[in-house]
């Protein structure tokens, strides 16, 4: 709420995502980065001082207590340690999403306890598949060794399995590898087209049946090995019987809610999430709440496909991933391309 005397907004928004750089040393087939979309997107990054000033403004205005650093590949940014140190001094919890290829004992030691959670990709137990999906030879060996080094340092680790046609058959053994390496949790994220991934849709998109089989395994695995597994990319209930999976956690689009993960790009442009290319404004020029409350965000939040009208989970699911719909079809009010591709199998849930 705006304080009339100071004209400041006293509301808080807990979590932010900050894309520290657009540079990357991988060339993932499934990459969703918005600067790889067909439509042009601003590129570049600010210097260290400007970046820290921008982050300071963001933290002041939002009261955010958790920031996830991502990219591109964050460790390609030379001042990444300065950014982490700055956030730690502000008592902000820092998560780091990295492909792990630039992590070693030295860099891990430098981060120390300032990183709360490391998120790394583990795309397959087969090195060839992981390397192929990453677009980088040797990526598998590097990321598995990085995980082992992080474990030695006592870090908390989440591995991300991006489920595609290329690697889905190897999911059971990949989960076993993650467990054997000692990771703390696994994200099982279905391929969500956008960026580079948009061009590779046919090559990568698995069927609902293939994904369901993997979910069946994941549910049992999570129970047997007490391994937390979450499906953070929306698994539309019209295609998946998500209620039967007692041991998995499912996420839906949080845009516009108190749990939204607004994303800041390296130039200060704010977006509803890291999959969406909609720029709400620039934090350096405009207040956060002005953008979060603005018309663009309202339109994004309210958008829901016609297909979902009448489904009892319409307001929770909101048609899957709006960002993917926006990138692949044209508007957040369009149907998630995954649902669109398997429309004939989708069954919107009726009110009992």
């Amino acid at each position: 709420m705006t304080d009339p005397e100071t004209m400041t907004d006293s509301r808080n928004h807990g979590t932010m995502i900050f894309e520290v750089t657009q540079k990357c040393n991988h060339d993932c087939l499934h990459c969703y980065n918005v600067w790889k979309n067909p439509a042009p997107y601003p590129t570049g990054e600010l210097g260290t001082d400007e970046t820290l000033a921008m982050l300071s403004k963001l933290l002041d205005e939002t009261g955010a207590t958790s920031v996830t650093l991502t990219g591109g590949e964050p460790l390609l940014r030379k001042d990444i340690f300065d950014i982490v140190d700055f956030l730690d001094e502000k008592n902000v919890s820092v998560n780091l999403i990295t492909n792990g290829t630039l992590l070693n004992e030295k860099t891990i030691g430098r981060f120390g306890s300032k990183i709360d959670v490391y998120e790394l990709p583990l795309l397959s137990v087969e090195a060839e598949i992981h390397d192929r999906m990453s677009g980088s030879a040797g990526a598998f060996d590097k990321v598995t060794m990085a995980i082992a080094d992080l474990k030695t340092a006592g870090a908390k680790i989440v591995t991300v399995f991006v489920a595609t046609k290329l690697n889905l058959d190897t999911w059971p053994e990949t989960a076993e590898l993650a467990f054997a390496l000692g990771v703390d949790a696994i994200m099982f994220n279905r391929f969500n087209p956008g960026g580079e991934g948009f061009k590779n849709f046919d090559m990568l998109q698995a069927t609902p049946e293939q994904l369901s089989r993997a979910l069946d395994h994941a549910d049992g695995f999570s129970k047997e090995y007490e391994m937390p597994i979450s499906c953070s990319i929306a698994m539309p209930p019209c295609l998946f019987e998500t209620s039967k999976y007692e041991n998995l956690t499912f996420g839906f689009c949080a845009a516009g809610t108190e749990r939204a993960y607004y994303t800041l790009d390296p130039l200060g442009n704010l977006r509803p999430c890291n999959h969406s290319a909609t720029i709400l404004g620039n934090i350096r020029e405009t207040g956060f709440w002005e953008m979060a409350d603005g018309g663009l965000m309202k339109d994004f939040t309210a958008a829901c496909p016609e297909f979902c009208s009448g489904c009892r989970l319409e307001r929770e699911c909101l048609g899957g991933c709006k960002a993917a719909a926006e990138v692949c079809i044209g508007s957040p009010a369009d149907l998630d391309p995954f649902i669109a591709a398997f429309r004939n199998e989708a069954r919107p849930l009726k009110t009992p």
Partner: protein
Amino acid sequence: MIHRTTGIFIAVLGLLVVVILILIRFDIHLAAKRGPRWKRNLVTAGILAMSLLGLTIPNVSCTNGKDSTTVTGRDGKKTGDEGRPEEQSHLESVWSEATEIASGKRGAYPFDKKGKKKILAELEKAKTDIDTLESNGTICGALASILRKDLAVFVVGVNEKQPTELRPLMCYSPKMFLPAKASMKRLTERMPLLEKLLAREKVNKALVSKVLENIEKEISILEQEHYIRMLTPDEKTEAEELKKKAASQIEKIRAKLESKEVSLKDSGDIKTIEEALNFAKPFADSGKSTTAQRKSICKKLDEADKAAGQLSKAGLISIEEAELIQTETARVRNRVLRNPPTDNRIMCYDMMFVYPSQKSMNRISKRLPLLKRIVKDGKVAPEVIKKVLPSIEKDIETLSSEKELKHLQADKQSEATSLRDDMKKVVSEIKNIMNKKK
């Protein structure tokens, strides 16, 4: 070492004394500071026990029960507050906060990041408070010992709680973690998977070595007193068993890593076995050997037994094949030792004579189950089978001889022929398997 029960007894007794003093309206804070040392310790123990139970100490009126009016000094402080050690006040306040946090009374996210750092710093200071209070005689050694152990438990309990910044979010952030304490069971479950992946050549040697080091490190943390202390007797037994299992699994995987690059026929261990049997053979055949030669032979055969165990641990041969080798070395050893040493001057050397048919029967009965299991698994290491097959066939030959069988008692003869026939069948099956492998 002071028994914990003694400390608890002192605290309970002190509690009773304090309750009585309160009831008779005696100034307990003064009582904790005056009088003989045993009395001061007892009253202080009682005061702290009351704090631990979460009971506040009522504002007690002045001395000797004569006057119920509270005396207030010129500085405005009540007499009861005067001179109480600062460390004691600090300890009491930290104790009550840590109890609420560690017990879960304040929920899974009882503080923010800053708050967690603060309470951990206070608990660190509490260690010094206990030391100071013990050294100046405010508390006795028994109570200090109890407090230190409980403090360690509090530190663990506080560390296991997460700050509010890590409260799980609905979307994009992962479902958050189990409590920090890694279970021994989880560690031992990791290893079979690691072994399986190693066998399928999915992971490289350097990575597996590193993971094993991490597992050993985690196991060593769980051996620390303040973790073990929280287990029930049954859980402690289970933890001990799991530790042994983990150690054996680690050894097995490490052995596999060592042998991973080497095939059976090129391995040092199979060469050790071959050399030992080849060395012993002439002495076994002749039955003649000196004391020094016997010592050397036995040493080599011991090494061969050990090498068979190593090969089995490394997974290059099965357990049954390792045991077969060991029955073969035992056979050779017995043949070497069947006569007295040639340099032995003692004339009378009694030996109980055992007929060859009996020896063959004994050997076949030991070897038959092992070979049956090998046939059942369908996995044969030809290098091993070729070592033991000649002596097995020799035993079959012995039990096929009417002359030799007659040395056995009638009921043993039918048992011997049955064993012989079974062994013939199994040998034929093993030869088939070996031929198919070629």
